[in-house]
């Protein structure tokens, strides 16, 4: 189990009603975060996950010091 800080942006922050939280997950990978988001906030797979400022598209191993951000669809321009 690891303890990790997760940042929320855009619609994700709205749905979570917070911009950041510390969560405990069983597995040290991004899929475990997505599972938590689905369970807790009903967030489905349309969210993007960034690990240390890089998007990851498949389950990626993470450490507690990584910067994890959950992003809704990009809508610049």
């Amino acid at each position, binding site marked *: 189990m690891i303890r990790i800080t997760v*940042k929320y*942006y*855009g*619609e994700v922050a*709205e749905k979570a009603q917070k911009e950041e939280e510390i969560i405990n997950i069983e597995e040290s990978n991004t899929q475990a975060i997505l599972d938590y988001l689905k369970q807790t906030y009903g967030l489905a797979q349309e969210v*993007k996950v*960034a690990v240390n*400022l890089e998007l990851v598209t498949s389950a990626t191993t993470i450490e507690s010091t990584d*910067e994890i*951000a959950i*992003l*809704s*669809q*990009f*809508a*610049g*321009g």
Partner: protein
Amino acid sequence: MKNLFIKGAISPEFIAISIAKHQSKKTIGAHNIFLGQVRADMVGENTVKAIEFSCYQEMAEKEMVALRETAFKKFNLTCMHIHHSIGEVKVGEICIFVFVSAPHRKNVYKATEYIVEQVKTNVPLFGKELFYSNTHQWKQNK
């Protein structure tokens, strides 16, 4: 990158100052500018009155720096500037300003188009479309 994010709308005066700054660059022959303006789109019975932009700043800056390097190499530009609004931008106001300059005109149109598409796809910016009815929806790029 200076002033990458601008609080609120990007004003025509800001654009004019940016253009004027290039008049000392005597090898530039062609400028191309893209401006994105907030439309009063209808969504069902609602009409957009503004978009409230936010971003994941550290990642957005990193993506912009990478985009800048790629675009300079790809299109042989003399100058390139990108500015995006953060916060509320009302209908009719400008929220993105892309400005490229080169000795000759050939590549400038493609360069601007490329940069705009990359910003929309790769830069973590989020837009909340605010309706007159005080409800909202999250903007989806097409």
